[in-house]
């Protein structure tokens, strides 16, 4: 086990970062905000953390916090500007934001290292800290998926007008989505820089939008479990399927298409509905019984039989 862990450390780290990146797209999606700005925040987090470590020699924890907060602040500004947009317009505006971050990174001079990127970003990030951060984030996200808050979030997503009429401040929820997405994306970018000790233009590319979307579409868009399933699947698939190798992009594309058509709720949704079907099957059947049968609970008896029993 530990040998396996040691030899696949890079993949484990990549999985944890991928979970956070996927969540930064998933959280707004759950609130009905089709924003892909998490990828831009990822780029911001990646470059900000590199600068903090290289110039200020900050430790891992403050770097994570500051990167996350900077990205969240940018997310808030972006949110204030575009939260009124909906659907495709919002998606495209946020993709434009992501690509703008890329152009800034390309032209950022010594702050971003231009096309070369920044190297030698070493901070005291331990695996324990990395695990702890991701688990903490997952717990916090889980708390938004149970109870009253979950119901409010569902209403804001499915029917914003209804939510508003029930006294839910839809605007605040939507803005929060941008901020949370920014923070998670920034954190993911920061952790990516710290684990790989380098940052470059590949950390702000359109490809990441595809990766993050793929992760949650295949895993499941409505629960953090979906993000985890997708992140594990897509980080480990290439190493498991050696055959895929150079056709990786092709296979990914095929998976995305199939998921978009046949799996509207992702693998996690598939698992949920399968479980529900099994539970239904083994539940004692509710059927009208003959009046002379013993131990008939009154509620399960159809009215006409009830009359006949009397």
């Amino acid at each position, binding site marked *: 086990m530990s040998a396996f862990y040691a030899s696949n450390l890079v993949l484990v780290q990549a999985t944890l970062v991928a979970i956070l990146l996927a969540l930064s797209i998933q959280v707004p999606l759950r609130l009905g905000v089709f924003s892909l700005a998490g990828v831009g925040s990822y780029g911001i987090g990646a470059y900000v953390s590199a600068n903090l470590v290289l110039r200020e020699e900050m430790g891992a924890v403050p770097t994570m916090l500051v990167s996350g907060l900077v990205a969240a602040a940018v997310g808030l500004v972006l949110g204030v500007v575009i939260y009124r947009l909906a659907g495709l317009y919002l998606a495209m505006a946020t993709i*434009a934001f992501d*690509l*703008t971050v890329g152009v800034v990174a390309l032209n950022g001079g010594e702050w971003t290292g231009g096309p070369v990127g920044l190297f030698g970003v070493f901070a005291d990030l331990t695996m324990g800290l990395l695990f702890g951060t991701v688990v903490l984030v997952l717990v916090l996200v889980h708390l938004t998926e149970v109870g009253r808050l979950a119901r409010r979030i569902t209403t804001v997503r499915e029917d914003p007008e209804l939510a508003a009429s029930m006294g839910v401040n839809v605007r605040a929820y939507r803005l929060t989505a941008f901020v949370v997405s920014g923070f998670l994306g920034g954190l993911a970018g920061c952790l990516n820089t710290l684990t790989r000790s380098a940052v470059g233009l590949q950390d702000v590319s359109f490809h990441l939008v595809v990766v993050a979307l793929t992760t949650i579409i295949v895993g499941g868009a409505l629960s953090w479990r979906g993000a985890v399933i997708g992140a594990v699947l897509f980080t480990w698939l290439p190493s498991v399927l050696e055959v895929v190798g150079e056709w990786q992009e092709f296979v990914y594309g095929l998976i995305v298409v199939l998921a978009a058509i046949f799996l509207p709720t992702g693998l996690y949704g598939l698992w949920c509905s399968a479980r529900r079907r099994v539970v239904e099957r083994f539940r004692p059947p509710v059927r009208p019984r003959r009046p002379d049968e013993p131990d008939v609970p009154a509620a399960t008896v159809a009215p006409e039989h009830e009359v006949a029993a009397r």
Partner: protein
Amino acid sequence: MQELVAIASLGSVYLLFALGLSTAWGTIGILNFAHGAIFVSAAYGCYELLEVRQLPVLVLAVVAVLIGAAMSLLMQVLVFDQVRRRASSERAAETRILIGGIGVAMLPIALASHQTKNLAFGLSASGFEASVWTIGGVRVSSVQVATVVCAVGAAAALAWYLRRTRAGLALRSLGVDDQVAALMGIDRRRYAWATMAVAGGLAGLAGVLLTLNLGAISAESGDALLIKAFACVVLGGVGSTLGVVVGCFTLAASEVWVLTQTSGMWVEAVSFGIIFAVLLLRPQGIFGRQEVRRV
């Protein structure tokens, strides 16, 4: 003056590409994210064809149109139709059509980058040499003239079709309300197929013309073009043909201006800036109509 030629030819490539995107989005409600992939694939298909056999440029252009139309139609039948049939609501369908488009775009691009090993490819094997004329100190190539003629012609034909014919009216009515349109006996599926085929054909033509113009393109150039076309469409207003024309030439002019005024690689950011500015100041675009939506 040389800049004007550059603006005209660049804007025309954008126009050929964006016309189909805008029409499909404005009428049948499909924003095809694989439009850039069609553009690249048509050029790549011609490149592969030239490896096998020598063909004149005019035939190549026809082949590109056919490849583009076939791919676009296939996507519509195999992906977008399926998504729409299975989706619970219009909004869910919109999101998943976007995602399906991203996925389906990866297929031909992966194929092309694999075959070309991520190198740029061109159509020089056709032996075609663009003739260059110098008029009053301004250099104009025959490819540039062809691009402008094709783009303006296509835009004019499309505008005429949408505004003046019965079928065009039917198509526009789908964009306003496809349920009511269905009640009026309009077969959405048939119109969707035709629209996507035309859109794909135009993208294919744009692919070959740009490749001839630049000499070579890479498999990844479709994504950047897609965002630019989106900027043009948003700027002009979704569903307005005149709007797309104005949007495309405005973007081309801004890009050429930025390219000549600044150093560095800021030119890519122009289209993003336009998207933001338009969505903020005038979300319906210059010529767009305000959407009426009842709660």
